[in-house]
């Protein structure tokens, strides 16, 4: 009976499922403009903007958030199935599906923020901080001679750190998988030839 459990994977799956729930309520990153005149709360799973108290939802971002919720939830469930039965023949496929998802989420989220700041600088001419506080001055051609500066404060919240921990656990699960899978199993693994390859080889045999 196979009793081996990939504990990194198990912890990773728990952290992923917890991250999905937490991120629905607490953002990964928050930007505040002025005295909360505009607030942006962002994470790959839930993003909302409020402008002078009015809440705003951008449909495309909402769709991407739903996609992230589905994918990370699926990754968490698949990772938990894998971690309980890491030696099964299908486990490698499950692990391959699950361990990359949180990594992609974190990387794409940070890339999205960086791109957003670059767009803000190039299109509107003012700097949006990724973290920390900054007094950004609007370009004078936008303000008709009046100098208008806006105090912006941005910060990564604790769920972002939690997400990085989840990424770490999932990558550790992948590394640990190589250790717990017996080396002689490697010899047992056979690749199913692609149908096209099989056909071409059978044709070659017939011809010979």
């Amino acid at each position: 009976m196979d009793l081996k459990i990939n504990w990194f994977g198990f912890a990773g799956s728990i952290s992923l499922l917890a991250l999905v729930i937490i991120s629905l309520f607490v953002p990964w990153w928050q930007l505040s403009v002025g005295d909360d005149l505009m607030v942006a709360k962002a994470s790959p799973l839930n993003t909302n903007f409020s402008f002078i108290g009015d809440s705003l939802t951008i449909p495309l971002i909402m769709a991407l958030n739903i996609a992230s919720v589905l994918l990370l939830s699926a990754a968490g469930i698949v990772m938990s199935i894998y971690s309980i039965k890491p030696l099964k023949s299908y486990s490698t496929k499950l692990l391959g599906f699950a361990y990359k998802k949180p990594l992609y989420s974190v990387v794409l989220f940070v890339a999205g923020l960086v791109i957003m700041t670059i767009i803000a600088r190039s299109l509107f001419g003012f700097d949006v901080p990724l973290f920390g506080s900054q007094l950004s001055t609007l370009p004078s051609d936008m303000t008709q001679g009046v100098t208008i500066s806006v105090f912006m404060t941005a910060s990564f919240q604790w769920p972002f750190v939690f997400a990085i921990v989840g990424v770490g656990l999932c990558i550790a699960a992948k590394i640990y998988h190589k250790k717990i899978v017996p080396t002689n199993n490697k010899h047992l693994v056979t690749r199913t030839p692609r149908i096209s390859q099989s056909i071409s080889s059978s044709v070659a045999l017939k011809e010979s």
Partner: protein
Amino acid sequence: MQLLGLVLILLNVGAIATPIAGVVLLNSNDLSQIIIPTEFEEIISNTICNGESIQLPQYIGSSYDQSSRTAQVIFNFSNPFEFDLTLNTVSANIVCLDHNFALGYAALDDTVLIKQEETQTIIMNFVWTISAENHFLSQHVNASAIDAKLVEITLDISGIIIEVPEEIIISLPIVS
């Protein structure tokens, strides 16, 4: 095994494609709504682009306290927007209009909340310096008030800092 791989691929594709397709279908009559929804345009037009803009504080009058060498300069400040504003600071340098002599610095004592589409009276306190008093004694001996101007006016409105190039002319009562 191949079935599992297929299921996982379908899960990947479906999880991304389904919500996006849903949003596209819901906004099929105007696809620009996917990025800029109507509510966003409404908020912008009702708040920022409602044809109104912040006006400089309107000078009402001034009073002075001889013992503390302070003057109070009273303004009306209007909020033309459909949301409340907090006037965190208003500050300016005060300069004698006739001689362009720096008299001191005026500032708001406390924050003032100005409700939407309302006008609020704000009071700026001005403590004049010894050199300003000497200026009054030497250049405005018989005057009970002098004309002065507020320059380098800076307003902090709800965290937005506005530096105004215009000057406000005021009549300042002085100790003669």
